[in-house]
């Protein structure tokens, strides 16, 4: 097992290195930030001074090597706009995004798995068909539009929930700032979390349904019934554990997606997370922040992949065996 983890870690480091190059090169070609950063009426000497100060007069490979050197000591550059370390800017806003992504994931799991399993066990029933139609809507309706409609309905027309922003009632749990311990916090997070969850919820429903339909016809399910087990044990233990394997795999990877693509939801609901920071940084061509953001996302994905591999080996004993051989 430990050999397996070390091997995965080394692969992960290689992925991060390659990604850092792609990200840096990608942002390099996007545009010239000096046009936005330097005042229009500055003279040539002033312009050259700013460019040299930001290190933009260096050739590409020197800039990249400097970035790598800084990154190794935990310095991902300073924001052009705020003159603060880019990493600090992101880490300040990361808890808000993680909180949002976590609640969205919880919604997707706690509603998706039961609904999908139910639909898979009784595929012909009208309720199952309604669930599946709903999941198609969840897949195909654009997130920003659903978000706006939710604000219109629940905040403007019904006035039940606040339309935008995050609650100020922050509690620190193990050093992690969260608003989930206050009613106001939940009132603020509910709409954006549901909005962010819709796509994943549909995905979980479809996965669980496909899993349930496949598993329920297996001989071992019939054999479990032939043993005289109660229906609830057959479904909750024998069927569920087999369904969970693909669901855990996909969800682990999708959690990275939730964090990375919360951009749209955060923009619609003015949620003060890293997605909103990214959009602002792109419009100012604030290179260090964009690069730092993308590197953080890469790290999250790589880390989640590792976690999924380990969780998978716990759920499915056959994977564990292969790992031991490798």
């Amino acid at each position, binding site marked *: 097992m430990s050999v397996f983890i070390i091997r995965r870690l080394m692969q992960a480091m290689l992925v991060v290195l390659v990604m850092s190059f792609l990200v840096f090169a990608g942002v390099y070609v996007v545009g010239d930030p000096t046009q936005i950063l330097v005042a229009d009426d500055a003279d040539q000497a002033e312009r050259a001074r700013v460019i040299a100060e930001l290190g933009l007069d260096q050739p590409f490979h020197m800039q990249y090597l400097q970035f790598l050197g800084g990154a190794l000591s935990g310095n991902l550059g300073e924001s052009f706009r705020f003159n603060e370390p880019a990493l600090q800017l992101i880490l300040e806003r990361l808890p808000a995004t993680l909180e949002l992504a976590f609640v969205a994931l919880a919604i997707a799991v706690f509603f998706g798995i039961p609904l999908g399993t139910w639909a898979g066990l009784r595929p012909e029933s009208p309720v199952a068909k309604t669930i599946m139609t709903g999941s198609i809507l969840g897949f195909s309706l654009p997130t920003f539009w659903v978000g706006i409609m939710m604000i219109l309905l629940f905040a403007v027309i019904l006035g039940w929930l606040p339309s935008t922003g995050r609650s100020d009632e922050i509690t620190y749990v193990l050093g992690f700032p969260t608003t989930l311990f206050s009613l106001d916090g939940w009132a603020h997070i509910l709409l954006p979390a549901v909005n962010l969850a819709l796509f994943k919820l549909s995905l979980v429903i479809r996965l669980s349904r496909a899993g349930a339909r496949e598993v329920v016809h297996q001989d071992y399910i019939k054999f479990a019934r032939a043993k*005289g087990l109660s229906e609830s044990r057959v479904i909750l233990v024998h069927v569920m554990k087999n369904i969970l*394997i693909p669901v855990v795999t996909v969800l682990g990877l999708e959690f990275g997606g939730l964090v990375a693509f919360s951009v749209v939801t955060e923009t619609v609901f003015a949620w003060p997370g890293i997605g909103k920071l990214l959009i602002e940084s792109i419009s100012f061509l604030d290179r260090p922040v964009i690069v730092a953001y993308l590197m953080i996302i890469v790290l999250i994905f790589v880390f989640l992949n590792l976690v999924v591999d380990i969780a998978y080996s716990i759920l499915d004993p056959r994977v564990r065996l292969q790992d031991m051989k490798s």
Partner: protein
Amino acid sequence: MVSDTEPTLEVRNLRTHFFTKAGVVKAVDDVSFAVRPGKVMGLVGESGSGKTVTGFSILGLVDAPGRVVGGEIRYKGENIATATDDRMRRLRGREIAMIFQDPMMTLNPVLRVDTQMVEAIRAHHSVSHKEAWQQSRDALGRVGIPSPEERLRAYPHQFSGGMRQRVAIAIAMLNRPDLIVADEPTTALDVTIQGQILYEVQKLCEETGTALIWITHDLSVVAGLADEICVMYAGRVVEHGTVDEVLDQPAHPYTRGLIGSVPSRNRRGQPLTQIPGMTPSLLNLEPGCPFKTRCPDADAVCEAEPAITHPAAGRDVRCHHPVTAGAPLEVTA
């Protein structure tokens, strides 16, 4: 063979039909037989003759769109064809157990063997986990699995096919059922393992007085194991009798064909007798004898459905032209 003991299971005129979009499939159509304690009934037939569906009907495990539409399944006198789901759940695994055909598919791949055994005990008896675990360990030992204590903690994929089938048999015998339905349990195994398992099942049934229904397409297996044989064709029992009667003096042309197609050392070098044609589709079966299109003796009479006749006491044949006792089997050398 007439026995005085009360049958453990008596199936009377069982009909199990599948209501598919293409039409009604009469998978089991008027099947009757009985098994007595400690006896083995061999249910023989080709693929698709309704053997397995008969087995599932007994356990109440026929999946939709199929259901039992007629007849009685009397278990110790109680008609379980009409029993409630809860009653059937209590019977399954405790009094009526089943062993499946493919041991690679019978055990849940993500649950440890001890989980799957302990739950089978605790579904019927309120015993502690520890006690159920010890019973499971002893049961594994009885079916010849070495170091059962260690093997209990393993997952199914760590067992070979033969070992898995032993585990399945051990699970079926856990609660000492009075009836076991074994659906071709040795088909997927190689012959040496097959022999061991046959021996063990026979021994266990004799010791505990368990009645056994052994479903198979392999006549040589039932020849050594069963007391009585039911030959099934197209969802019906076409011939029934003791194993010696049926194998030595087959009365139905289909049974004769089956026996003729078994390879034998005495007929080395000669081509095997074949039954011409294929098993008919059970969907919209033509009226009359279902075997008429493949039967060497078929004539105009066979356009009518044959009734069951009794050439001797305890023998049933569903044929207009049964071969009379003593007639030589044309395939014997």
